[in-house]
């Protein structure tokens, strides 16, 4: 797993959580955060110089606060809007990490975010994630993984990783 890709993913994720959701990731997880289950996942597929998928998994306990910070207190209580807000976080992370990895000239097309109750259905465990990062948020945690589909040589040719 190239360390520069992990750093890019970590930076994009941290900036997105801080600026969009006003939540501050902690990279040293507490015992409580480590034990918190990852109950919801959202995926964003992308096409471009290389194709793949970004998967963001979070503890459901952080959803109300994230959605409230993004959309307002009333909206943050609505489950559908909580899921939509999570989708936007994944979309923005993906949109920021790809140029950081592939360079500023690369053009990618991102699909609409898809929310999944079962994270294992989208995590593509049969593929090795090219980059993965995990951090604590409030009393829960979040995990982000970047998968490249097919032959990773296309990605390596672009990134030089």
């Amino acid at each position, binding site marked *: 797993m190239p360390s520069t890709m992990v750093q890019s993913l970590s930076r994009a994720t941290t*900036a*997105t959580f*801080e*600026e*969009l959701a006003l939540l501050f990731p902690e990279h040293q997880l507490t015992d409580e955060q480590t034990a918190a289950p990852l109950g919801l996942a959202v995926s964003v597929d992308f096409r471009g110089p290389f194709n793949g998928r970004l998967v963001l998994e979070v503890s459901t306990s952080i959803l109300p606060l994230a959605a409230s910070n*993004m*959309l*307002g207190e009333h*909206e943050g209580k609505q489950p559908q*809007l909580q899921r*939509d*807000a999570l*989708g*936007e976080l994944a*979309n*923005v992370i*993906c*949109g*920021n990490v*790809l*140029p*950081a990895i592939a360079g*500023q*000239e*690369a*053009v*990618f*097309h*991102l699909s*609409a975010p898809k929310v999944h109750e079962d994270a294992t259905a989208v995590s593509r465990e049969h593929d090795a994630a090219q980059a993965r990062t995990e951090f604590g948020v409030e009393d829960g945690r979040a995990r982000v993984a970047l998968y490249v589909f097919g032959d990773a040589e296309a990605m390596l040719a672009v990134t030089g990783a």
Partner: protein
Amino acid sequence: MAFNVLVVDDSAVMRQMVVRTLKMSGLPLGTVLEAANGEEGLFTLQEHWVDLLLLDINMPVMNGEEMLRRLRAAPETENLPVIVVSTEGSETRLAALHELGAAIVRKPFAPETLRDTILRITGVNDAEYYGAVPVASDDGDF
């Protein structure tokens, strides 16, 4: 001066976030209209005058770049202030949008970034926005 604004983004959540950010920024807002893609945005502009357009790039039906090109080709909207609010990272694509006269705000953005960009491209200066700033007298007692 109150700003009438059109927000064009295929994500309802992002439109809501942009509108919320506009309200948080303290800018005087008039009517805030929304559209889900470039085609809807063009229809909306046929019916309503706005002072400012906040535009996403990647959208179905008609993307933001195509909408912007059509706006610039029409005399009534060729000078409309436009801010592209997007995760787009391609410098090539951003340069094309800049050449069409759009300012760029990358997601994620801080409210003050959006506010400052609006003030800059609409030409509203700080005195108009914040009101007259009292000048301290230099004959005070020390």
